[in-house]
């Protein structure tokens, strides 16, 4: 059942077993998983079924670090940011969960294997194809679509699978509506999570609408699922009892904010023989039950040996390079006129003279890269207030020289791989600057602000996603990520939500 919060009488108190705050990918996954189970569920969503500028404006805030857009990078209505996500899906790698001694603050309290069964279910929820992300044989189709045989063991091909992309708010609206035990309150904003006087237990949620209504929800158990930035903001705003915010006795809430810095054309690649490039590298390709795209990633062996963080690189066709191209008006900085020369040099080494004017092809690349967790990269509360009278978010996104250097080193590894192969030369365009105070782009991936750690001094939640020190408050979403890996977060956060759902159901079976 859906109820418009604006129609709820002021002062109403709603009793429920489970309150889920936020109906995005995480909240909807959780709600669905509780459908028709022996517990009452109240799903509280800030928006309605459509975009509304006034509600969206509640996401505005201040950016004081690497410039970042707080409101354009997420959507505040039923379905959340999945109303405009791109559908790129890939699980993290086992190494991403490990404590890597060269990555400060790394090490999840769970492993890849803990999450694997949930990843497989997440694949179904996001309507992705078979769970074959690293299976070259599966996508090679008997050798017809072989990945590039890059030697050296540093760079490898892996695959993303695409969700259609699933609009969680559209696809799962009906089953949530039909579930007898779920009531969804739309246009209803949680204003504060109010704990008991000793702050060890959530007592109630204060809820408000932009039209001025105020009511409360009294849950047995709460799951905060308002997105990777808002989860931290909600905890910080919940400060009537704990002045530093809920779950923040160690000043970790909001810290370790991570994104995936995106760089457009960090490198280009010239290939003498474009025929070896399987189409799945260049664009979305339908193959063996999925829509896929191949990317270059860095092997675990390389990451360990070179003490690096990961990068994902896409690869697309850009231009045929010919001897008869006219470079008269070329930009001296781009030095495109050297491209035929580079291809001729490769051909010299292999003794492979071109028959005609076509020498090869230029490929562009794009990349998303991992940044190391950094406590100074953080979400705090701004002094400015939103339309509900709540402090807006202040984001201080930090990228370090080490993050930049890491990407550059990974590009060099890419150059080594293509060079050893002999059919490609990599041109590194990513500038060798000593600062990274401006991101070329980002992924709209908000991670780390309520990170998982078994140590309350280093994380906000434990391995079960439960906030340290509070017995009935859980968090869902990419704010849980201890480290960001390089892949898009939604598949992982859906898997984590499914795992949390199992835990919560067990908790209820035992009696909360």
């Amino acid at each position, binding site marked *: 059942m859906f109820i418009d919060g604006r129609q709820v009488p002021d002062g109403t108190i709603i009793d429920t077993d489970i309150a889920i705050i936020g109906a995005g990918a995480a909240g909807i996954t959780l709600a669905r998983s509780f459908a028709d189970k022996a517990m009452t569920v109240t799903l509280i969503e800030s928006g309605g079924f459509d975009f509304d500028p006034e509600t969206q404006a509640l996401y505005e805030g201040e950016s004081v670090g690497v410039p970042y857009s707080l409101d354009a990078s997420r959507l505040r209505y039923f379905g959340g940011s999945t109303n405009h996500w791109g559908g790129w899906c890939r699980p993290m790698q086992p190494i991403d969960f490990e404590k890597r001694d060269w990555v400060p603050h790394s090490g999840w309290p769970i492993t890849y294997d803990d999450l694997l069964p949930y990843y497989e279910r997440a694949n179904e929820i996001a309507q992705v194809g078979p769970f074959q992300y690293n299976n070259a044989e599966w996508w090679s189709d008997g050798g017809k679509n072989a990945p590039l045989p890059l030697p050296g063991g540093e760079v490898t091909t892996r695959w993303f699978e695409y969700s259609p992309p699933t609009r969680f708010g559209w696809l799962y609206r009906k089953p949530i509506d039909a579930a007898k035990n779920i009531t969804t309150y739309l246009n209803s904003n949680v204003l504060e999570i109010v704990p008991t006087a000793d702050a060890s237990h959530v007592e109630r949620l204060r809820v408000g609408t932009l039209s001025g209504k105020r009511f409360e929800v009294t849950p047995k158990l709460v799951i905060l699922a308002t997105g990777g930035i808002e989860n931290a903001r909600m905890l910080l705003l919940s400060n009537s009892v704990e002045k530093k915010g809920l779950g923040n006795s160690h000043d970790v809430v909001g810290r370790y904010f991570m994104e995936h810095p995106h760089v457009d054309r960090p490198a280009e690649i010239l290939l003498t023989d474009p025929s070896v490039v399987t189409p799945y590298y260049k664009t979305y390709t339908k193959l063996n039950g999925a829509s896929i795209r191949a990317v270059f990633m860095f092997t675990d062996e390389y990451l360990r040996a070179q003490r690096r963080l990961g990068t994902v690189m896409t690869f697309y066709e850009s231009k045929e390079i010919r001897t008869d191209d006219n470079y008269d008006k070329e930009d001296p900085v781009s030095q495109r006129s050297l491209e035929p020369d*580079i291809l001729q*040099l490769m051909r*010299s*080494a292999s*003794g492979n003279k071109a028959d005609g004017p076509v020498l090869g092809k230029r490929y562009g690349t794009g990349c998303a890269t991992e940044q190391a967790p950094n406590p100074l990269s953080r979400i705090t509360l701004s002094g400015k207030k939103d339309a509900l009278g709540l402090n807006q978010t202040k984001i201080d996104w930090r990228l370090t020289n080490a993050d930049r250097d890491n990407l550059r080193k990974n590009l060099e590894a890419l150059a080594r791989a293509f060079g050893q192969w002999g059919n490609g030369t990599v041109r*590194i365009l990513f500038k060798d600057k000593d600062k990274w105070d401006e991101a070329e782009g980002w992924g709209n991936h908000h991670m780390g602000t309520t990170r998982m750690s078994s140590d309350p001094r280093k994380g906000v939640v434990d391995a079960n996603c439960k906030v340290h020190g509070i017995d009935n408050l859980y968090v869902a979403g990419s704010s849980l990520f201890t480290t960001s890996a390089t892949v898009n977060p939604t598949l992982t956060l859906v898997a984590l939500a499914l795992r949390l759902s199992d835990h919560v159901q067990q908790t209820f079976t035992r009696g909360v």
Partner: protein
Amino acid sequence: MGDTSHDKHEPHPAISRRNILILGGVALVTAALPLAFPRFEPDSHTLVDALAGLLVDRDAAARLGREWRLKSTGAREPRVIAASIGKRLVPYGWRKDGTPDELRTALLARIRHDFEVSDMVGISGWQLARTSAELCALAASLADEGKHDAA
């Protein structure tokens, strides 16, 4: 003849390329000025030709070589460069009396090795094996001397 200007890192600025050419031939210069250049392997002259012979487009390689020279302080004399490349190729099976195919095989193997150990040179961002860059430097030096006409 191409650009003969030497940058400030030229090891022996007192001996200009023009003077060298006036002395009338590389062999004579080598004999007359034993201290001016490092000693050559006796077959470095043939190696110059053999290496240049591998290039499918010498002009192209020369352009890359010039780009690299803008940044590097490496040798300018073709035989010095060829000798240096030859040294790099020995562990990969190159012999002075080998065939062009053997030379190419050794070159290819050495280039792979350069990439493997990250011995790369950036030319306007393109990441080349050091041996490839040296080959380009050789082409540039030859073009500058006008010894090998553009292919």
